[in-house]
């Protein structure tokens, strides 16, 4: 276990009845890094986060956080963890200011004491201090939830899908806020189903059906893509995918934005592809070699 390791998980498993939610997970999270768990819905992210936040115990395996075992150190841990559940779970019938004050007092601190830490985030909603939390917009709720999770200056901040259901502008704003927490050396673990957000983490774990497929820096994960990848565009994207999937030389063809990411047998691009596509009547076909994204690597690992 490295010296700067904040979370160390060894062979963690958890099942609910017949469902294996987590299957033999091992990973280390370093102090001060932003660590992302990337995976689709139902991959086990929330279950894992509940174990990290001491709300659940694993069936098997060991986990230590800040050197404390989650089984008997949970009392101490709860003082040092800030948790923002996937579902907004502050008191809707309390105002912005009341919610923040309440969570500060529950952790035995005051808003004033740690105001510096949340200034950048809270200042956006401070003008609405008297408004009930239930009457806030999605982006504002998210800022309040983050403020409340940070108000006791936790060593570990756990964010379960913080950007799900939030508009694109608020999403990037949210990541900016997380970056601004760097000087305080708070370790942040965050889960998200959005592959583009993975790039904003220091390291990510790709998780699927309760198993970790890969753990690395996002760039290295992209580099892990083993084949040549081509981005193909045409005027009719749907027809293009159907055509590419029917093409005998195609290995994979996945939609990606307004293009299709394709790999071919023998790894190269042969002229027969052009011929085939023009035969099917597709117009304005553009083929470019491209660098694999996290999503491409994810899909490759899932094969």
């Amino acid at each position, binding site marked *: 276990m490295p010296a700067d390791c904040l979370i160390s998980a060894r062979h963690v498993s958890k099942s609910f009845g017949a469902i294996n939610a987590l299957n033999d997970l091992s990973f280390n999270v370093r102090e001060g890094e932003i660590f992302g768990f990337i995976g689709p819905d139902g991959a086990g992210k929330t279950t894992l986060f509940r174990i990290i*936040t*001491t709300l659940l115990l694993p069936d098997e395996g060991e986990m230590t956080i800040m050197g404390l075992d989650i089984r008997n150190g949970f009392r101490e841990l709860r003082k040092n963890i800030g*948790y923002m559940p996937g579902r907004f779970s502050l008191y809707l*019938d309390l105002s912005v200011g009341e919610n923040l004050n*309440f969570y500060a*007092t*529950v952790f035995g601190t005051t808003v004033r004491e740690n105001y510096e830490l949340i200034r950048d985030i809270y200042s956006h909603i401070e003008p609405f201090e008297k408004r009930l939390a239930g009457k806030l917009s999605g982006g504002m709720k998210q800022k309040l939830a983050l403020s*409340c999770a940070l108000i006791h200056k936790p060593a570990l901040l756990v964010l379960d899908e913080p950007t799900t259901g939030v508009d694109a502008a608020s999403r990037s704003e949210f990541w900016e806020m997380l970056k601004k927490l760097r000087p305080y050396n708070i370790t942040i673990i965050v889960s998200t189903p959005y592959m583009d957000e993975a790039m904003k983490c220091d390291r990510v774990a790709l998780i699927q059906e309760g198993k970790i497929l890969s753990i690395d820096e996002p760039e290295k994960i992209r580099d892990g893509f083993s084949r040549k990848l081509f981005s193909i565009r045409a005027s009719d994207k749907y027809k293009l995918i159907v055509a590419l999937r029917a093409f005998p030389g195609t290995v994979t063809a996945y939609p990606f934005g307004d293009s299709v990411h394709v790999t071919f047998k023998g790894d190269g691009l042969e002229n027969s592809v052009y011929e085939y596509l023009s035969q099917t009547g597709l117009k304005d076909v553009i083929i470019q070699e491209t660098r694999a994204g996290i999503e491409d690597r994810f899909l490759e690992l899932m094969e």
Partner: protein
Amino acid sequence: MRTIFYLIRKEFLQIFRDKFIGRAIFAIPVLQMLILVPAVTFEIRNVELCILDRDLTTESRKLVNQLVGSTFFKVIFTTFSEEKANDLLSRDQCDLILQIPSGFGNDISKGNQVKVFVAANAINASNAQLSWAYLNGVIGDYNMDIITEKIDNQSFVPIPQVQVTNRYWYNEMLNYKYYMLPGILGILVLAIGFLLAGLNLVKEKESGTIEQMNVTPVKKYHFIIAKMVPFLVIGLVDLALGLILGKLVFNIPFEGNIALLFFCSAIFLVAVLGFALFLSTFSGTQQQFMFTAFFFMIIFILMSGIFTPVESMPEWAQKIDLINPVVYVMRINRMVLLKGSTFHDISREIVALTAIAVGFTALAINRYRKTA
């Protein structure tokens, strides 16, 4: 300790932020008292009587008049047809049939034994029994009249007879309001504590706020106590409201020490709140809680002795009642208010109630898990 204070402050903020609940907490008990106390009574008035007078003599008319004259009976039908009378009874249009056979008057004047026939509608058994008893009373009076008349005609020597005179202690006028009001006070406190506290905790589960709370260092007993205290205070304020209403509107006697009454109600509330919170740990939604709470409340109330004495319940039911907190508060309220019982007189009830309160609260704290 400070944590508990902040938690309690938060609960109060939330309770009174909801304008409806904030008002209902005080309005509903007032309504409950004003409606239930005068409405729920065992006194039977206006028993609907059908007379089948086959005799039609002075004697039979005298009996009928005596019945009409009492406040309990209302003759709604007079007929000669037994079929018609039975039909009325079976269609629920009368409660009692009194059949006076022909020759009734004649037999009385001759000094013979006479019989009247009574049929009662026993759909409501207690109602039938009570009307039957009232009717017996009236007929008894009638008998006395005949006897004295006969004797008057013969001699002036009074005949010896045993007569029962009674005195109803602690409620001399047998005023049912006095009897019901202390019980209804108990139910009022029960409803406030049970439903509000239980729903409050389940609401935190439903809205997910409890998940955030569980990750905080707040201790289990802090959390449970903070859920109890606000409703304890509200319950006692409601009790005070109820007592004030009782005095002003129904003029109930305050024989005992009111402070003792509050002390006992506080213990009772802890028991009720503990049970409600215990129950709420089993429910994931407010709907689930309401359903189970309703079931338990009905059992608690109907077995409490408010309507029917606990002593006449089957033995197994009395055993169950040992852990029914409402039983004790029912007794305590009545004894303290009507009889002026002291701490010493009700010490057994207080000990039992305290044991129940401690037990339920311990169960609630134990069952509440700070895990998902």
